Every structure is written in C-alpha cells, then in structure tokens.
C-alpha cells in the first residue's frame, strides 16, 4: 500500500509541475538554527540588487491561522489533523502567492517549506509516503538551504531565550515525556534525524549554523548568485 501511495505521489508531482519563469529558494532547520535571520538578510540583499523577490512564511495564511491557533490552544490536534491543517495553510499560500509569483518571474523565498512537514509530521507518526503525496502538488525549490546545528546548541538557543515552551512546539502531543523541556529535547532530536535524511534525499545545501551570521550569509549569497541568474530577475520598470 505504501509503495502504491509513493507511486501516486510521483505521478501527482509530475502532473502538477508546470515550468515557471521564477525561482524558488527555501530555508529549513531546527528552531533556533537562525534560518529566519538568514532568509531575511538574503531578502534584503536581493531587494538591494533590484530583484523581483517575494517572501512567504510557514503557517501564515490568514484564513487558516485562526483554526490552527484554536486547535493548538485547546490541544485538539491529532498527528493527522495537525498535518492537514498545515497543508491547508501551505496550499492556500502556494496557490495564492507562491505559484503566481513564480509564474510572474519572481524569486520566491520560503521560510520553511514542505520539508518541515516531512520532518515534523513524520516524527508525529504520519506515513512518509502519504506526506510526500499530500505535498505532491508543490514545486521543488531550486535551492533548499539546511542550517545544521549541533542539537545541544539549538536546544540552548531556544531554552535560554524562552522560559515557557508551547505544547505542540515541545511535541507534548507525542507523549515522549511529561516534562515540557525533556519532551522538547526528544522531539527536536527526532526532527533533526529526519532533516539529516531529507538532506540527502532532496539535495539540501547544508550550511554550518555555528558560524558567524555574516559568514553564513556570505556563503548563502554566493550560492544564490552562482545558481540563479540574478540579472534575469531585475525589475523591468527601471528605477
């Protein structure tokens, strides 16, 4: 059955992938890996160069936001509905924003992409092939940066800065531990293992997230400049 679902996923992907003029860049990594800072800096740089660029963030579609918030607050979510509600959010942003922008020839930057779901929802017990089929309609990014950090460093960054962890963030729904911090550690470890596997499967560009922020950014910019023909994405209107 799993093999069948995998075949379905492949076919859905092939059917759903129109050629687009734009380019898609995603960042992935654990909470606290600094990926949001890096994509923000990348965004600023591209804007400064006069590129047509757009930014989209995981879990930010207005329509689905309320339902997600409610579900998390009341702890109503199961692994399946947790996964589906995020897929709904993603589909809404994808069809309303990401795909149109790509068709219009923009560089689209995504803070987290389907890989976040592949990692987290897999840890929650969802089937990997089912998840790949669920997101089968989404184009693969041209570049996916993975910000790799030793687990303890990532944990430290989050646990030092924040006194109170949230229920789902800590993976409390998995029943790994009754202790919020302990559960968070175990959950993050499992998510990290998933990311390491995905890095090979999807050809992530891995960035050492222990290095200085500006050093990482320099590397990110160099890779973007090398892989995307940036001159091609300058605004036509002229400034």
């Amino acid at each position, binding site marked *: *059955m*799993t093999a*069948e*679902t995998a075949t*379905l*996923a492949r*076919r*859905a992907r092939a*059917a*759903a992938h129109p050629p687009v003029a734009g380019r898609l860049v995603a960042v992935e990594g654990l909470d606290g890996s600094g990926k949001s800072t890096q994509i923000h800096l990348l965004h600023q740089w591209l804007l400064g160069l006069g590129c047509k660029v757009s930014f989209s963030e995981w879990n930010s579609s207005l*329509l*689905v936001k*309320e*339902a997600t918030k*409610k*579900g998390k607050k*009341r702890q*109503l*979510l*199961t*692994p*399946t*509905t947790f996964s*589906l*509600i995020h*897929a*709904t959010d993603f*589909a*809404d942003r994808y*069809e*309303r924003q990401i795909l149109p922008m790509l068709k219009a020839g923009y560089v689209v930057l995504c803070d987290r992409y389907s890989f976040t779901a592949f990692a987290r929802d897999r840890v*929650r*017990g*969802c*089937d990997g*092939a*089912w998840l790949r*089929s*669920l997101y*089968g*309609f989404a184009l693969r990014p041209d570049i996916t940066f993975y910000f790799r950090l030793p687990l303890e460093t990532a944990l430290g960054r989050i646990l030092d800065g924040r006194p109170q962890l949230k229920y789902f963030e800590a993976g409390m729904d998995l029943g790994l531990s009754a202790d919020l911090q302990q559960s968070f550690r175990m959950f993050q470890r499992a998510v990290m293992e998933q990311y390491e596997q995905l890095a090979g499967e999807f050809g992530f560009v891995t960035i050492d997230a222990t290095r200085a922020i500006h050093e990482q950014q320099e590397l990110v910019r160099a890779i973007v400049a090398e892989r995307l023909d940036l001159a091609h994405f300058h605004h036509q209107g002229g400034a």
Partner: protein
Amino acid sequence: MSGKRFFGTPLPGVSADRLLGALIVIEGPDSSGRSTQIGLLGQWLEQQGYAVAQMGLRRSQLVGAELEAAKQGNVLSPRTMALFYATDFFDQLENRIVPALRAGSVVLADRYIFTLIARAAIRGVDHEWLEALYSKALVPDATYFLSVTSAVLVERTFAARAALDYWESGMDLGLSRDWFDSFLVYQRRLRAAYRRLESRFGLERVNAGRSIRAVQHDLRTRVGAVVERTLGPASGPGDGNGGAEGERAGA
C-alpha cells in the same frame, strides 16, 4: 473480529481491529433525502437498543466554523478547500467516529469521503491525489448512495427552499451564468463522478426517487443486516427471544 480496515495507510495510533461498531455511510446530493433518512434510521436503531452516533460535513470542533466561513466567502482554491474539508473530516473521524466505534456504536455518516472526492474532482483536483489524501480513512461497513434524477432534485430543492444553492448549482465553476442551466450541468457531472466512485469503492445504489417510507424500508432491510452481522442481533422490540433477560436470570 469486526474486520475494519483502512483504505491505505492506517491512522497513527488507531488499531482497526479494536473498532467494534458499525460504520454506515449515506451518500447523495443535496435534497436526495439523506438527513431525513438518517434521522429515521437513527431512531429505529436506538429503538432496537443500538447506540447511535452521527457525523456530517463541516461539523468538526476544529475547523467546522472556519470552513463554513470559507464557503461563504468563496476565496479558496479547490485544492485548498479540499485540504480544509479533509482536516474537518479527519478531526471527526478521529475524535468522534473512532471512539464511537471503539465503544461499539453504530455510526451514521451523513456523507463521507466520496462526496468530498467527487466535488473536488469535478473542480479539477487530481483523482489520484484525492484518493491518496483520503487513504487514511476507514472503509465503511456499507455505503448507500441515494440516487435521484435531476427532475426530482429540482422539485425537492424548490419545495424546501424555493431557491437554488450556489455550490450545489456549481456556480463557482462558471458553467453558465444561468443558475438553473448551471445546476443541471453540475448535477450531471456530479452523478458521473459518483458513478465512477460507485464501481471503484462498491457503493450500493438506493433509488431515492420513491416515497420517504419506501426508501426507509429499503434502507432498514439493508442496514439491519449489516448491523446484525457486525454487532450481533438486537435485544430491543421485535426481538422475541428475550435472550438478555434469560442470561441475567441464569447468572
């Protein structure tokens, strides 16, 4: 042994063999008489002594209200809408249906994945993607499709509301600016989509063009057999052997 199974990948944390109850699905377009028939069936089953639980679309605690709002606004793409409906469906499946089946109840579902697949498919969402999406759903013990002709649907719709419904007329598809023409084309496409599912998933067709009584009689015969096969014979009225009392007296 209840013999429950999933269409594909099981739901995380749910073992199908512990689901003792019976899952009965009634499918069909709006105005086919689904809710009337389900109401009557539920009453009848309870009179027999079976516990009954119900589910329907957009009734989940999680996203029921939000989905209703999205439907009014018509701002979501078919795929997003399909995922939103799937969220609503699985919330009810996990939080309502599975516990009820574990407890040995009869669950009467007012529509199931078939309507959700049919509606999304005629709006251009890929069939295979939809079936993979719903592969975590439980296979019902029986699914009855209430089939009616367009002429009967039109009469019943007008009798109930004196107006056509935007979605049930497929107005979002741009088939025709004329609501009535659109309704006919849309319902024809919907019937074709259901027919495809009928053969693929073994839906049993029930002629719902007949009187309420006649349809109910038909359904009771079929549902009664399934429930008895799944849960054992009823102990309520009409069951003359008084088995339950006899057991108690002997204990």
